[in-house]
């Protein structure tokens, strides 16, 4: 073989008709024509907007007018892995948008723009991907955010969980809004925006084939509208948290430790839908430790609690809002619950994964 001349690839075309494959192949991550096809036909088709359409290495956002007058930038990121990819009440697409939107909203920010990075497993059906991306686009539209930059990688079959999505988001916190544990005072009220454990039990029931699938749906929802309504009715909101992984138990423990206060909640006030309560009973799970994707905890001054509750209850994502408990000076860092029959116990920080009990 003659090694004198470099090989000439001009005019070379791949003989394999990869472009028409119905599934993700490694070449979709190669940065060439296949990647370009995927971006154009799947991602731009769903997310397209003037900023994203430029397909630059980065997107330039003009937030100047919103930041004028003391507004501050909020920035957050989260990765989404869930099995199955579609479940009652939502999919990884809605989670990837609403999760990051809610992380921004918990600092009081108005979410504006998201990034979206996709790790695709070889073999994933492109039609399935397009369906999930369409759900993601719909969620972004509903939340009023635009997806302005993104990335795609492909990993070999069985080295990914079908699809992993990472989103990052920016938003603007209006002047005068300053939420955080340092604002919390003894006597403050702790409010929960609705029923607990819907998301975690929806995933568990469909994953394990427990037969509750028809009855339990994920609560995934964007919460910044609810936050905005709450801030109007009650500008003195101290702190907001969305109780996702680890549930309300983890969030309350984090609040108690960060604020150096105790928290007391009333077991009778814990809102759980009847079917979710039954599912948790059967599996021996505590609804306080199960994940939510469309609920928030708000700490507000006691005198504003009724106004805050009224504002939340008139919003579509807060109509079951309830007064869960209060901040106390005693037992700093510890969350206590008054049981329905009049006893009390501590709610510990959940250890790790929730494991169903034997009997």
């Amino acid at each position, binding site marked *: 073989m003659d090694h004198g001349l470099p090989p000439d690839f001009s005019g070379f075309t791949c003989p394999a008709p990869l472009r028409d494959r119905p599934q993700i192949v490694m070449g979709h991550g190669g940065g060439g024509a296949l990647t370009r096809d995927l971006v154009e036909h799947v991602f731009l088709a769903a997310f397209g907007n003037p900023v994203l359409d430029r397909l630059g290495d980065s997107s330039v956002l003009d937030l100047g007018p919103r930041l004028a007058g003391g507004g501050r930038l909020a920035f957050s990121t989260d990765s989404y892995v869930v099995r199955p990819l579609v479940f009652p009440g939502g999919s990884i697409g809605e989670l990837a948008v609403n999760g990051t939107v809610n992380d921004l909203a918990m600092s009081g920010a108005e979410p504006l723009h998201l990034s979206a990075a996709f790790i695709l497993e070889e073999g994933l059906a492109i039609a399935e991907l397009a369906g999930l991306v369409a759900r993601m686009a719909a969620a972004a539209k509903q939340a009023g955010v635009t997806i302005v930059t993104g990335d795609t990688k492909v990993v070999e079959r069985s080295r990914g969980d079908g699809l992993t999505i990472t989103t990052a988001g920016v938003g603007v916190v209006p002047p005068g809004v300053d939420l955080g544990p340092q604002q919390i005072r003894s006597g403050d009220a702790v409010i929960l925006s609705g029923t607990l454990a819907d998301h975690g039990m929806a995933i568990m029931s469909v994953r394990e084939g427990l037969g509750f699938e028809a009855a339990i749906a994920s609560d995934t929802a964007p919460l910044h509208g609810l936050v905005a309504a709450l801030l109007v009715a009650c500008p003195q909101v101290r702190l907001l948290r969305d109780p996702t992984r680890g549930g309300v138990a983890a969030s309350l423990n984090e609040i108690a430790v960060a604020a150096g206060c105790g928290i007391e909640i009333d077991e009778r006030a814990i809102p759980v839908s009847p079917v979710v309560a*039954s599912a948790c009973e059967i599996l*021996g799970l505590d609804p306080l430790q199960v994940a939510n994707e469309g609920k928030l905890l708000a700490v507000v001054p006691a005198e504003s609690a009724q106004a805050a509750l009224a504002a939340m209850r008139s919003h579509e994502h807060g109509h079951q809002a309830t007064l869960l408990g209060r901040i106390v000076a005693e037992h700093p860092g510890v969350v206590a619950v008054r*049981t329905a*029959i009049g*006893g009390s116990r*501590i709610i510990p920080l959940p250890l790790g994964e929730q494991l169903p*009990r034997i*009997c």
Partner: protein
Amino acid sequence: MKHLAEYRDAETARRLAAEISRIVTRPWAIMEVCGGQTHSIIRHGIDQLLPPEIELIHGPGCPVCVTPLETIDKALAIARRPETILCSFGDMLRVPGSHEDLLAVKAAGGDVRVVYSPLDAVKLARSNPNRQVVFLAIGFETTAPANALAVKLAAQAGLGNFSLLVSQVLVPPAIRAIMHSPGSRVNAFLAAGHVCSVMGTWQYAPLAQEFRVPIVVTGLEPLDLLEGIRRTVEQLEAGRHDLENAYPRVVTERGNEPAQAVIAEVFAPVDRAWRGIGVIPASGWRLADAYAEFDAERRFDLGGIRAVESPRCRSGDVLTGTLKPSQCPAFGRECTPRTPLGATMVSSEGACAAYYNAGRT
């Protein structure tokens, strides 16, 4: 769903607690046998409603807690084998063996799966004909019928790749062992309602007579337990020692006879070691000879496994009621749910974990 509200009514709970206070005249130690009862007592704060004369002693009825360390080590050895799928109830995954737990074996590549029923493990065996599927069959009389049925179905289907690692234990021999132990302070028992739903109550009347202790069968809801305690105190104060069924909506004298029949077909009595307590005669079940081929201990070479308990763990004293969890020197210090020395700190039904998680000191 009705059960959640109906048997947790605060007003009725207060009334029952007040009635117990009214009739009690001197100290009584009452053992709740079942881990589910312990979990419910601590979770709902039932003991906090009782007069100081009543002491609840937490019994050995948590299946996770009494499964011997050796059985856990055997499960770990099976799970490490590349050709096996080890199936277990969820809370066994965190129980420490001599060196690690099933979660660690899973992270290292072992195929460990949480199932909700042993019948799911049979399905796995059917759909994975080239793998060995082993179900970790632990528990009291409550888990035995489904475990026995799984073996029976596997036998009918000719599944040569399904087996059980058995550590089935029984309540009545444990009650007998506790009453024979020299340090026992137990004046009465709350018997486990769900065990009796399978086995009936007929085994308990002779025990009540032999040891002259009241035995009251209760459910797991707060009002079930309070009513059970009330009836127990009533007996103690009157000097009676009878068997009473305070859970008649679920439990009958004869129990679930079809379930007992499948147990009798698949299992046979055996002396069993209880973690922290030791060997209790005829206190468990093994696979009957006709089903011996489904015994994982025969199928896999596990002979060399011998386990040694941590000398710092006093779970045996906790399980027999001679030590409160919070009285153990290791409690909350080197022993927490995150770094458990023994199984009573692992399962949420274990007395130590129940105390720790509820903030009892």
